[in-house]
């Protein structure tokens, strides 16, 4: 899809010939996120769609306790320190952002009266600033009003490097200025098509200035409110035990009428995903179970009991196999997989092409992930009819054999292919997680049939994903031929995501393996295109460039996408939940209710 096509599509939406949802799906199929797609529409003057929720309760409270089960319990309740999703979820019960993302990528106003747009003069046509107007009358749990000063404080708090906040990336580039007591203007250093980053969604929760002001920078860890959040959300804190339980009670002064429905909420942590699924789907002991990374086979059987249902929300997460471009088995300057080396086997396009054909995505989907992972040859494959025509995938051992034969890889006496004295033996690593080990087994079997010897390796997740410089087994070092893991495109803008293939982000010793390009795949055309995208002022041209980038890596088999993984959760039959793959589970907790 190029720029012209993109403009055409936007015009069709404007003219009402193409639905917003269809537009979002078209862009998703070529690697763009739903939030980015809706932002393009907003920039082009197509107003944000109003999300409608079917909320039935007619009074506040009376719903009893909402019991939710998270197999990882929240460990802290300050959104600016929320290292993992679980911490964001715990914080989200009490804190709210200005706006949130629904599952179609639309912005939903939370603490503001309306979403900024060009029509309401909130959004500058040049993309240089945006004005946020707080809803009047919103109170913190302790009764103090929410004002523009709180927003400015959050920006300052997050930006201060001494605070070491994890939200710094969303705030450090912008500046925030006060217009009046209820409105602020966010200024960007350059035209920013993706303007809804700060104060929005999972990293946009607002903490109160009056409780945190004395605890900026180094002192931030001592703030009593870190453990006792005072926010604007539908529930007030009752009890918090890190890693175990978060309890909240109804906020009687919540800024929406008739909400929330439940009198109290409990977020219980610990255990494992399968037993969480059992507690909701099989016994109904709990109402909602978060992130059920469980084989679909088990989920289907648990669901058959009829007590609960599995919620599957398509998102942007993709399980993929990365191919190392550098040689992980030769040490240069005290570093393996040095950029100056070429991978002895994978640098041959025939091998990469054959490997892509040896990943039996259909079987992996059918027999491991089921509904919880859709086979894909693309970054996103949702729904099937919108699969990008540029990229395809197939599983074909014969063809893979033919490709290898043609590439000069002849089978040795032991059945393993050899070329120029090099045996076709690959080491395939991933983190420890049952579906991943099964995927490894399936890939290994197909590779054996094609004369590729594969050694499997699994690394405990806390090591695999750590930024520990001393350890050779981290994904960032990638001292291996192949590796598989899942990354969300969950962040709304793909620009950073696309950085994982640029030459200046190469993960190496000099940058302590913090570069994003762990595969060390390099292409000057890619670099140029990404640079062009970064400085592109026209958001539509920029989007078209991202699509081009996506196709470049996928078609060179630098990465083999395996399955697109939706958000999977479980809830009891009567619980009505609002879920979104572009925001936290609790992004719209206020709308949750139980049917009678």
């Amino acid at each position, binding site marked *: 899809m190029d720029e012209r096509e993109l403009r055409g599509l936007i015009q069709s939406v404007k003219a009402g010939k193409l639905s917003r949802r269809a537009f979002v799906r078209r862009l998703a199929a070529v690697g763009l996120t739903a939030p980015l797609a809706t932002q393009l529409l907003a920039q082009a003057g197509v107003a944000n769609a109003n999300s409608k929720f079917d909320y039935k309760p007619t009074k506040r409270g009376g719903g009893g306790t909402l019991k939710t089960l998270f197999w990882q319990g929240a460990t802290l309740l300050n959104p600016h320190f929320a290292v993992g999703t679980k911490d964001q979820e715990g914080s989200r019960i009490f804190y709210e952002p200005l706006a949130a993302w629904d599952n179609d990528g639309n912005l939903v106003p939370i603490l503001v009266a309306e979403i900024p747009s060009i029509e309401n003069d909130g959004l500058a046509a040049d993309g240089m600033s945006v004005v946020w107007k707080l809803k009047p009358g919103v109170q913190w749990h302790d009764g103090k009003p929410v004002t523009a000063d709180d927003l400015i404080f959050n920006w300052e708090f997050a930006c201060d490097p001494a605070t070491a*906040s994890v939200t710094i*990336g969303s705030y450090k580039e912008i500046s925030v200025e006060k217009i009046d007591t209820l409105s602020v203007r966010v200024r960007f250093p350059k035209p920013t098509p993706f303007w809804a980053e700060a104060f929005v969604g999972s990293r946009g929760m607002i903490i109160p200035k009056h409780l945190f002001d004395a605890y900026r920078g180094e002192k931030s860890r001592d703030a009593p409110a870190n453990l006792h959040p005072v926010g604007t959300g539908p529930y007030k804190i009752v009890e918090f035990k*890190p890693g*175990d339980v978060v309890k909240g009670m109804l906020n009687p002064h919540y800024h929406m009428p008739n909400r929330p429905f439940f009198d109290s909420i409990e977020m219980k942590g610990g*255990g494992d995903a399968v037993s969480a699924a059992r507690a909701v789907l099989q016994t109904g002991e709990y109402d909602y179970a978060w992130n059920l990374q469980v084989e679909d086979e088990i989920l289907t059987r648990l669901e058959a009991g009829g007590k609960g249902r599995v919620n599957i929300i398509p998102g942007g997460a993709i399980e993929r196999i990365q191919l190392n471009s550098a040689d992980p088995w030769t040490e240069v300057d005290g570093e393996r997989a040095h950029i100056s080396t070429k991978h002895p086997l994978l640098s041959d396009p025939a091998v990469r092409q054959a490997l892509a054909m040896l990943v039996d995505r259909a079987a992996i989907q059918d027999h491991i992930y089921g509904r919880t992972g859709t086979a894909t040859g693309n970054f996103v494959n949702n729904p099937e009819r919108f699969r990008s025509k540029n990229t395809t995938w197939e599983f074909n051992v014969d063809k893979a054999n033919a490709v290898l034969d043609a590439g000069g890889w002849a089978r040795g006496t032991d059945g393993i292919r050899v070329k120029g004295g090099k045996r076709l033996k690959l080491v395939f690593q991933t983190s420890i997680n049952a579906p991943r080990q099964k995927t490894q087994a399936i890939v290994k079997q197909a590779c054996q049939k094609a004369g590729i010897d594969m050694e499997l390796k699994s690394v405990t*997740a*806390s090591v695999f*994903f750590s930024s520990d410089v001393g*350890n050779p087994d981290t994904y960032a070092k990638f001292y291996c031929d192949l590796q598989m893991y899942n990354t969300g495109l969950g962040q709304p803008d793909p620009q950073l995501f696309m950085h994982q293939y640029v030459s200046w982000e190469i993960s190496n010793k000099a940058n302590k393996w*913090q570069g994003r390009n762990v595969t060390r795949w390099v292409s000057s055309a890619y670099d140029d295109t990404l640079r062009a995208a970064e400085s592109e002022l026209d958001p539509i041209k920029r989007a078209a460039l991202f699509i081009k980038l996506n196709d470049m890596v996928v078609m060179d088999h630098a990465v083999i996408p395996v399955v697109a993984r939706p958000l999977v959760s479980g809830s009891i039959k009567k619980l009505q939940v609002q879920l979104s793959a572009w925001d936290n589970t609790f992004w719209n907790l206020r709308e949750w209710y139980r049917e009678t």
Partner: protein
Amino acid sequence: MSQYLLRRLLIVVPSLLGISVVLFTVLALAPGDPFEELAANPSVPPEVAAALRAKFGLDDPIPVRYARWLLAMLQGNWGFSFVSRVDVDVLVLQRVWTTLFVIGSSQILALMIALPVGVYAATRPYSIFDQISSTLAFIGFSLPTFFTGLLLILLFSITLDWLPFVYRADIAATGWRWYWEHVRQSLMPVAVLGLAQGASWTRYVRSAVLDVIRLDYVTTARSKGLAERVVVVKHVVRNALIPVVTLVALQMPAIFGGAIVTEQIFRIPGIGSLLISSILANDTPVIMAVTFVFACLVITFNLIADILYGWLDPRIAYR
């Protein structure tokens, strides 16, 4: 005796210091850091993880970090959790009571099974009772707790729907109901731990009793016309208790340390689950605090066991 005790107490301090050095070194060398989830999130700049590492002093040399930890510990400061950003003692104190209750009850259950069953089986070796109890004991320790726990859940929670399988430290109920709920939710974890522990202890008790039951003095006691019960309780068991005391002393520290797998299965917010999540997240201050207290208990109970040996068998001389 008192001189021996004094000498033992004096070497406690250097041994604890030595253990703490080893513990700290192991933890410092262990791979990984607390920022795993940051890595999976492309919108968090890598500098954040680097800044956090620097802030928590993870990049300093190990001796410097150890000295800092020791100084703080001497002042009663247990450290500061990297992950939760709270003081470690807060985290530990929140969980210690649950662990004491669950693990303590399971140890009592284990002893209540092991002592009578082991002694009775040994007085009638290779009888039907002995064969059955032995077989059950073998099942007890050849099945891992992750498996028996799940088996109990499937039976009592899912099929029969009698017991809850998510443990909640604080139950919103008062009076009898509160006790009743606590008992109900503790039944399965206590049974899993107690039965596994009881199974192996039963074997030890049986073996220890077998070792003494045919000794001359027992025969003498019998021939004096003492009732069999008196012979067993007064003459046999006391002399067979030395291995049992050793084993109980080995297990006592677990009352503080918790049981990682069982706590995980039943979601018991105890020290064990705190320890495992801290280990997986490489939250070194928490691991260090918990294991150090654990080490203190190991040493204390070893000392207690040594003193009990002398009481059980007065011939043991302390020199």
